[in-house]
């Protein structure tokens, strides 16, 4: 005989449809959203990784002042590489953007056509898809520069430009102001006399095994090429941000999503826990009777687990369907909104399935099983008597008569339902965690922009790009000559300009921390820009450095030469107020000495006005307000959508939890409410007695959770940002976020309270007569 209790399932679902719908929504959204994100991420990462082979992405590129002669090319290729021409030209277009135009590539760094086609004749152009989107350009539109017009015939992704960095030295890319494009070969031929850049890409004949070998190979290669060619630029692939940035960032996003997922899993498990608990409270007498009749504990555990299991499984199926369709598309759009990725194929992600479906299911089974086992281990007698708290009833807490009767009544309700209210507190806390997570980032980024702008070292910082041939040659005499020549090129007459030296080292990644670049600035005596007295031992770290790593005066920082076994230790003597980057400041003499550089050596200028008399090809990096805020602006673009989704999701979660928990408290008090109704209390009075305590708890929970949240979330954010990003964002919590969250909490509760108020009206007086002890 089939267990007749199974017949309850559908009716149970029907009778408590509100509860199951909200749980269903919660689960579908959690599973769908996170699996969509992970599936999109994995599909993207796969497409990204496969693009290396599929589109034959270069192992590196170099730019020479002149076109290579065939003998030069041959000589270079004898160094174990194959060299491909990858010339480009940069053009300023009428929409005030710069496009780097290549001839269509057939052998290396091939082009992925996302929409339309490749150019086939003069006057046609295929532009980067993301650049097009950011500038509102479509196929068929016209792009023009200095009288020349181009018809856009295709939207493409250049495999070596998944992140549109203009210069490899830029801290962040800006896909609105800079884009890449390809034109037909014939069209490109016409540019040949027009400021063409002789860029060459190479492929190793034998791929290096790891980054260290890659570094050795590329270093040797650079020295070798520099002997024969006047190099303007030399970027091996592993250092090329345009190629590597995307992969690193997608992996970083995943880490953030996983934190979110764990919060959601806890909340889901928790919702199941309270639901089960509520069901047992409600059905204690029936359960006790069934147990007394001979039903085994396992039969009942199985029965009460069926409904949550069915709901979870259905939610998981629908969640996964939505995850692989709707949510995946949303997340893919998010990635395409940030990066110039090639086309992708959706892949089945076992990791996403495991994390979003299998783990929640297991947690749900485990939690419900533990709660049911615990509750059903009570004797049938206790269940029949509804004595299911497992504790003996203590004497009533004395409340003085000076407290008004209604207040005493409410205090009694608070005490009676303390466990429910505790659950409510944790529920609201978790929902707030998520909401906080989504709401605090945008203001934090805006604040960061302001802070960074205020604490700029100078309005413009120019860092030179040393032509590779100028110094790294083995012929000392010619090196000296080229150096003098080079010095001449980097002089300026701008009175605001102040020389400084700079050197890049890397952190050593202690305790599994991310290895990142640290810029060491050597400042001249009596600097106008870094106003501190430097002596031989002064080593100041930037406030961002101090904040990120929790460093203090007296600590020793160890930094290393990238890819070399050379370490430097600096004892911190203080902090310099600079939030724009991870930097160390010392006197120029001190830095040059430490790094074995000439006393006169300098690497750039600080200046409050623009320097116009140095050729841009000698300037590797310019740091100004625009570049410093580029990080936060790009983060706003790439994470903005995600944050709005998190906001939306947490608001739904908030509503679901408040609804479920308030419902639970009223349901637990149905008999008492019915009884006071019999006694003659009005609906309003009953609401004051039974809804008001919940309102007080909601308000108190919200207010108490904020300081805890701030403390916890700042900690979580610090860990997350530390893992995710190079550089640092000053963590600042916008006070208005608290106000918004509080108001949102109140409005949500008010809606729920209205529903509960109506429900009070429906509670029949006969309820009080049922199951009386």
């Amino acid at each position, binding site marked *: *005989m089939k267990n007749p209790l199974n*017949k309850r399932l559908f009716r*149970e679902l029907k009778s408590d449809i509100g509860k199951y719908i909200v749980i269903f929504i919660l689960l579908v959204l959690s599973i769908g959203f996170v699996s969509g994100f992970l599936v999109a991420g994995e599909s993207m990462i796969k497409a990204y990784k496969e693009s290396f082979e599929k589109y034959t992405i270069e192992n590196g590129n170099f730019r020479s002042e002149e076109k290579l002669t065939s003998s030069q090319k041959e000589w270079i290729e004898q160094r174990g590489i194959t060299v491909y021409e990858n010339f480009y030209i940069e053009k300023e277009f009428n929409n005030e953007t710069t496009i780097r135009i290549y001839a269509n590539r057939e052998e290396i760094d091939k082009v992925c056509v996302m929409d339309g086609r490749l150019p086939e004749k003069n006057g046609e152009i295929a532009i980067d898809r993301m650049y097009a989107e950011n500038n509102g350009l479509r196929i068929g539109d016209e792009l023009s520069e200095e009288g020349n017009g181009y018809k856009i015939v295709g939207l493409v992704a250049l495999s070596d430009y998944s992140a549109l960095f203009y210069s490899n030295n830029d801290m962040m890319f800006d896909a609105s102001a800079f884009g890449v494009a390809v034109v037909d070969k014939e069209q490109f031929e016409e540019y040949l006399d027009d400021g063409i850049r002789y860029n060459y890409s190479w492929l190793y004949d034998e791929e290096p095994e790891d980054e260290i070998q890659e570094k050795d190979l590329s270093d040797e290669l650079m020295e070798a090429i520099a002997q024969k060619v006047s190099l303007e630029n030399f970027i091996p692939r592993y250092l090329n941000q345009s190629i590597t940035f995307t992969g690193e960032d997608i992996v970083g996003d995943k880490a953030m999503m996983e934190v979110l997922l764990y919060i959601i899993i806890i909340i889901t498990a928790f919702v199941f826990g309270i639901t089960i608990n509520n069901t047992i409270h409600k059905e204690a007498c029936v359960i006790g009777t*069934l147990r007394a009749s001979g039903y085994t504990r396992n039969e009942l555990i199985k029965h009460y687990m069926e409904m949550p299991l069915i709901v979870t499984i259905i939610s998981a199926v629908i969640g996964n369907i939505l995850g692989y369709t709707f949510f995946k598309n949303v997340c893919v759009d998010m990635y395409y909104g940030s990066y110039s990725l090639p086309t992708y194929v959706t892949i089945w992600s076992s990791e996403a399935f495991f994390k979003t479906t299998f783990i929640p299911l297991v947690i749900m089974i485990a939690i419900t099983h533990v709660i049911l086992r615990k509750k059903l281990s009570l004797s049938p007698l206790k269940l029949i008597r509804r004595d299911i708290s497992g504790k003996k009833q203590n004497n009533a807490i004395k409340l003085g008569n000076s407290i008004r009767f209604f207040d005493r009544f409410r205090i009694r309700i608070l005490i009676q339902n303390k466990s429910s209210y505790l659950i409510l507190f944790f529920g609201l806390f978790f929902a707030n965690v998520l909401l906080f997570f989504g709401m605090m980032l945008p203001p934090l980024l805006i604040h960061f922009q302001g802070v960074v702008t205020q604490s700029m070292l100078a309005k413009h910082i120019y860092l030179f790009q040393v032509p590779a041939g100028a110094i790294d040659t083995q012929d000392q005499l010619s090196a000296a000559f080229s150096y003098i020549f080079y010095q001449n090129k980097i002089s300026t007459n701008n009175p605001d300009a102040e020389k400084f030296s700079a050197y890049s080292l890397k952190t050593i990644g202690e305790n599994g921390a991310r290895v990142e670049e640290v810029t060491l600035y050597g400042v001249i005596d009596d600097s106008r820009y870094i106003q501190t007295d430097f002596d031989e031992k002064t080593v100041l770290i930037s406030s961002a450095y101090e904040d990120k790593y929790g460093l203090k005066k007296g600590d020793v920082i160890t930094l290393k030469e990238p890819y070399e076994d050379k370490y430097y230790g600096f004892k911190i003597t203080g902090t310099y107020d600079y939030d724009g980057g991870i930097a160390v400041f010392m006197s120029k003499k001190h830095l040059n000495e430490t790094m074995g550089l000439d006393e006169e050596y300098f690497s750039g200028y600080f200046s409050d006005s623009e320097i116009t008399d140095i050729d841009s090809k000698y300037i590797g990096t310019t740091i100004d307000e625009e570049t410093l805020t580029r990080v936060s602006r790009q983060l706003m673009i790439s994470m903005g959508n995600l944050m709005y989704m998190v906001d939306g999701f947490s608001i739904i979660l908030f509503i679901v939890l408040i609804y479920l928990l308030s419902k639970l408290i009223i349901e637990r008090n149905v008999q008492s409410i019915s009884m006071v109704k019999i006694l003659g209390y009005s609906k309003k009075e009953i609401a004051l007695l039974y809804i008001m305590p919940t309102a007080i708890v909601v308000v108190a929970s919200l207010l108490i959770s904020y300081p805890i949240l701030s403390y916890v979330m700042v900690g979580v954010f610090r860990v997350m940002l530390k893992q995710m990003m190079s550089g640092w964002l000053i963590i600042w919590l916008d006070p208005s976020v608290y106000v918004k969250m509080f108001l949102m909490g109140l409005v949500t509760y008010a809606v729920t309270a209205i529903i509960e108020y109506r429900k009070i009206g429906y509670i029949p007086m006969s309820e009080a007569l049922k199951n009386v002890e």
Partner: protein
Amino acid sequence: MQLELQNIKKSYGESDNRIEVLKDINLSVEKGEFVVLLGPSGSGKSTLLNIIGGIDNADSGKIIIRGKSMSDMDDKSLTNYRREHLGYIFQMYNLIPNLTVRENIEVGAYLSKNPLDIDEIMGVLGLAEHQNKIPSQLSGGQQQRCAIGRAIVKNPDILLCDEPTGALDYKTSKEILSLIEEVNQKYGNTVIMVTHNDAIKNMADFVVKLRDGVIRKSYRNEAKQKAEELDW
């Protein structure tokens, strides 16, 4: 001998608050007997019934059912014992609210390898026409009939009834008592009924009067009346 209680003691609370609910109870019940445990509130009659039913434990003493000691049973064996041998009827019906009358009776039938015919039971209990109703559509008396159906459908050796008419009016109470009597006669189950209603003792084969946890009097009822003849 179907049931034998030897020196059953039970108390609640600790030290100063300790209350002895049952003080050395000894009792023997024969198969098929209709036993009434009679006593005022607090006399220990429900506790005794619960101990017999295996849903409460005695502090000391022995309960032997069909020659087997209950004190040797672990939780699992006790559940099996209830499953195979006992039927329970409470003052409150504790029906499953979202199952129909028939389905509530099936809940009991599921537990038995050889359940009685559900239609027959519903006929006996006068529930046939209500079989597709859910409990909230029934009167108190009908709900109790349904609870009786759930208890007897598995044809238990012993039917334990804890104040089964406590929440019912006079007329309905008599109907329910008649039904239990009919079940006892028709199926031959042993019935142990707890009540504080003195009149009900007259329908019993064996009457046990309890007060303050002690059996004040127990006797075989020689002048047994039919339930319908009772009056109070």
